[in-house]
């Protein structure tokens, strides 16, 4: 691990100010991705600005048709939240399946969404539910937020403060984990929302999370598992690695989508 300066932020403005003032500053949320990355010397920030002391970033609010989750809320808190469990149980279940219990005790939704790991779970929930990412500067629709592998619409120094999830009529998430890392080889989030069916796929795409339009269309014609399972999934743009080829990923998208719909 290279050395760095460590600073604690007391407020959102303090955090963004400190990162802006640094040569190459970065926010530290739960640290469950950032710290391993720095440990492996794959990142070398000059300054690490810890968000843990900013109380306003933690918490889950129920606004009737929307559940708003503060950026520094841990996966364990989301998984255990009565609000999330009753309003969007699929989201609580997804959070309960991220990493392992120790990662869930530290890792946060803001950190996960900002990192946009192509095999992470939360991006699928955001895109699948049509969430809105709230930053210190603006609100960004999930459809516009995830722009590529580890790439987002966040400007330099822009900080996620919360994620707003519209409550769906029904939703479910099915993950096929990488046997080694347990990250998603394919994860499919399906939701029946006010704006129609949404199907978001993580783990599979070379550009990270994406919506599966053919499946959304199929579900628009009738919410049933066989309809979505019968959709032919193109291998184009899907990942290849030692654990799964594009053909297998394409197949798994179908299986996971079908199982997700069946689970709703």
């Amino acid at each position, binding site marked *: *691990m*290279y*050395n*760095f*300066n*460590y600073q*604690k932020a007391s407020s959102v403005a303090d955090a963004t100010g400190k990162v802006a003032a640094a040569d190459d500053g970065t926010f*530290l949320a739960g*640290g*469950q991705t950032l*710290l*391993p990355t*720095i*440990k*492996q010397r794959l990142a070398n920030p000059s300054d*690490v600005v*810890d968000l*843990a002391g900013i109380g306003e970033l933690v918490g889950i609010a129920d606004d009737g048709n929307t559940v708003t989750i503060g950026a520094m809320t841990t996966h*364990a808190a989301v998984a255990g939240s009565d609000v999330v469990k009753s309003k969007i149980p699929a989201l609580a279940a997804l959070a309960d399946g991220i*990493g*392992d*219990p*120790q*990662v869930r*005790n*530290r890792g946060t939704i803001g950190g996960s969404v900002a990192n946009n790991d192509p095999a992470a779970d939360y991006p699928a929930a955001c895109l699948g539910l049509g969430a809105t990412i709230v930053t210190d500067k603006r609100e960004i629709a999930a459809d516009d937020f995830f722009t590529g592998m580890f790439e987002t619409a966040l400007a330099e120094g822009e900080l996620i403060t919360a994620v707003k999830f519209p409550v769906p009529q029904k939703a479910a998430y099915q993950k096929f984990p990488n046997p080694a*890392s*347990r990250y998603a080889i394919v994860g499919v989030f399906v939701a029946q929302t006010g704006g129609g069916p949404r199907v978001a796929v993580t783990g599979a795409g070379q550009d990270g999370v994406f919506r599966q339009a053919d499946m959304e269309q199929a579900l628009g014609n009738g919410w049933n598992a066989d309809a979505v399972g019968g959709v032919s999934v193109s291998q184009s743009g899907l990942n290849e690695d030692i654990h799964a080829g594009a053909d297998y990923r394409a197949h798994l998208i179908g299986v996971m989508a079908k199982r997700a719909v069946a689970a709703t």
Partner: protein
Amino acid sequence: MPTVSMTVNGKAVSADVEPRTLLVQYLRENLRLTGTHVGCDTSQCGACVVHVNGKSVKSCTVLAVQTEGADVTTIEGLATNSELHPMQEAFRENHGLQCGFCTPGMVMSAIDLVQNNTNPSEQDIREWLEGNICRCTGYHNIVKSIEAGAKAMQG
């Protein structure tokens, strides 16, 4: 170097550390609490699990400076006056350890499980242990140990 202060196993401790110092390094090298182990560099094996403010975390993936003011419990803090914690005793009774290297992390993780789920099933236990790798036991006796430890912690 920043100064970090926390409570470890009930004792107030304080030291100047480089910001890059991981909690596990601080425990092992500064405090010489070498029961917490490092078995990987990708935050997966769980040999380093300790409790921070009562919750299990991987001390290899937390900076010492992040635990400023926190209450930290390590494997050394469980037994009182050489009387084993019920979960430690359950591992001994059920042969839940062989080489002992993953054991401290297993025990700390298991205790957190029982804090969340007082009566875990075999499946609950196996799923909870996703973040703890053991190469010796094949997990059979670890699962039995945790089942017994959970019961003992209630009683």
